[in-house]
């Protein structure tokens, strides 16, 4: 017993190397110089009264273990997931194709061969990433944490602008009722234009979200039918816009496409 107590109370020697690599207590100005030494002592070995309490003795170690675990889980989760790139339908998009052209040229490869090679790399990368994350996955899931920070990964000349058109009969002309960020066509813009809803609609522009786009358009059409009893058909679509730039000062006009048409359900 005495031997165990002695071992617990023994302070580990502090080498210069250790001091180099591990941050020490607070600096001047951090208001708690006096407590820093106390907490350092607490970490090395608890005070006699606290020694009787198992939790007090182990709490700093538990905190340390948790911090290390949390940092490891967060760091591995931060490594970008390329799971969406495993769906090669997305590669057919014009914006993705442009990237493929640029990078295959930089690597001096034929584009098709480059794409096949890249796909193999993506599959291996994703497999390794998923395996490394497996031990941490329950922790991240239960605490709801995500470390995916893929934002605006590409700036492309083409972009999609969501819109909704309506008409009262099969041969009537379409009337644009909503076009994103267009005050002249602002039906339910307070809802469809909210950043969260825009975020969802933005994803519909990608081929891999075709199913959601279809269902989403049906929900939007139901709102249009509700608001206007005369409306018989609703069409969702994307206005494919080419942005101007020094290379293309006069871009072609937007093209309306990728449409989904919904007919009012029979009563």
């Amino acid at each position, binding site marked *: 017993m005495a031997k165990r107590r002695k071992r617990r109370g023994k302070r*580990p*020697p502090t080498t210069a*190397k*250790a001091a*180099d*690599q*591990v*941050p*020490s207590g*607070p*600096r001047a*100005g*951090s*208001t*708690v110089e006096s407590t*820093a030494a106390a*907490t*350092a002592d*607490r*970490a090395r070995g608890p005070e006699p009264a606290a020694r009787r309490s198992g939790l007090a003795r182990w709490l*700093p*170690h538990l*905190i*340390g273990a948790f911090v290390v675990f*949390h940092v490891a889980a*967060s760091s591995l989760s*931060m490594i*970008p997931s390329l799971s969406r790139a495993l769906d090669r339908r997305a590669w057919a998009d014009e914006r993705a194709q442009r*990237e493929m052209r640029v*990078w295959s040229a930089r690597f001096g490869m034929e584009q098709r061969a480059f794409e096949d090679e890249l796909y193999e790399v993506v599959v291996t990368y994703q497999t390794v990433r998923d395996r490394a994350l497996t031990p941490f996955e329950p922790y991240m899931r239960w605490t*709801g*944490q995500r*470390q*995916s*920070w*893929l*934002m605006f*990964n*590409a*700036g492309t000349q083409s972009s*999609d*602008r*969501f819109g909704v058109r309506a008409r009262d009969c099969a041969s009537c002309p379409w009337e644009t009722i909503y076009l994103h*960020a267009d005050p002249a066509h602002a039906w339910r813009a*307070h809802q469809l234009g*909210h*950043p*969260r*809803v825009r*975020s*969802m609609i*933005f994803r519909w522009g990608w081929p891999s979200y075709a199913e959601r786009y279809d269902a*989403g358009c*049906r*929900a*939007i059409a139901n*709102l249009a039918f509700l608001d206007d009893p005369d409306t018989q058909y609703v069409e969702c679509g994307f206005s494919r816009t080419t*942005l*101007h*730039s020094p290379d293309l000062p006069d871009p072609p006009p937007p093209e309306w496409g990728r449409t989904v048409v919904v007919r009012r359900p029979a009563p």
Partner: protein
Amino acid sequence: MNRPLNRSATQGRWARFLAYLTAEEDATPLALVRIACATTVVLHLGSFLLSGAADVALVHRELGGLSFSYGWFDGGLSVEGVHLLLVGVIVAAVFSALGLFSRPALLVTYLGYRAVSELNPSARGSYDNLLVDILFLLVLSGAGRALSIDARYRGKGGLTARWPRFLMMVQMGLLYFGSGIGKASSTWVPGGPASALWFILQQPTWARFPGLPLWAYPLTQIATTTTWIFEVSGLVFLFALLIGESEPVSPRLQRIKAFFARIRFVEGYLLFGLALHLGIELTMEVGAFSWASLALYPAALGPARVAKLRAWLASGPRRRG
């Protein structure tokens, strides 16, 4: 022969690491994170509720909404249920910002915000991830021990352990580095046309202004490259933060620490980040991302810089002049 020495060295490092993590410090930086984060939740969910967007975005498509997910609620939520949930989270976030029953309020805000964001994963943004990550750390921290009703009137003020703030600093480094390494397109990576921001700032889905004049193109090229460098330097920033808070013995690390201090790397990085986020807010509509990111900045400033800043602000404009 070496093994016991190595073991002792490891124990020494571990003990010093624990001493660093469990050191107690002024709770003001964490309190500022708490106030900024909770206020962001209030404003963001408030606009979501009041605009009516939540009525379509969070309701399952079987109930007439746009969502494919039931989230945490079996069968999904009706419009009234969505309203009730949002109001509950907003009230909890107000309590969190005021620091009234801080930890329970933060716990309800954290769980409630998760419940909201699970109702439609397609309508989720990166700011949701960031807010949940920060709220989780705030629940574990002593963020209610300063600048709070709890501290002022309920006798709950005092110092707090450093480790939650340490994890927030790590979070900042991961946020920027993770965002930077994801920007691998030819328009972002130096050596290409550096045209990413030119096009992103004009994306009809996100842009506040419809078009940029051509003379602004070189400016956006500079902004593209500096933003990319800023983001991929996220781990350098984290290293500079940590070494700045430690007292290295090795001459090499002392020199590195002195170098970062001399060029004011941390302050410069934070100022660039502030300008970046304000620029994003000015030119784009991307939800609560900028405010959620800026909510972490007090954690990086730390007690010493926050105390200096408070003293500087308290000194009044005349004396500052």
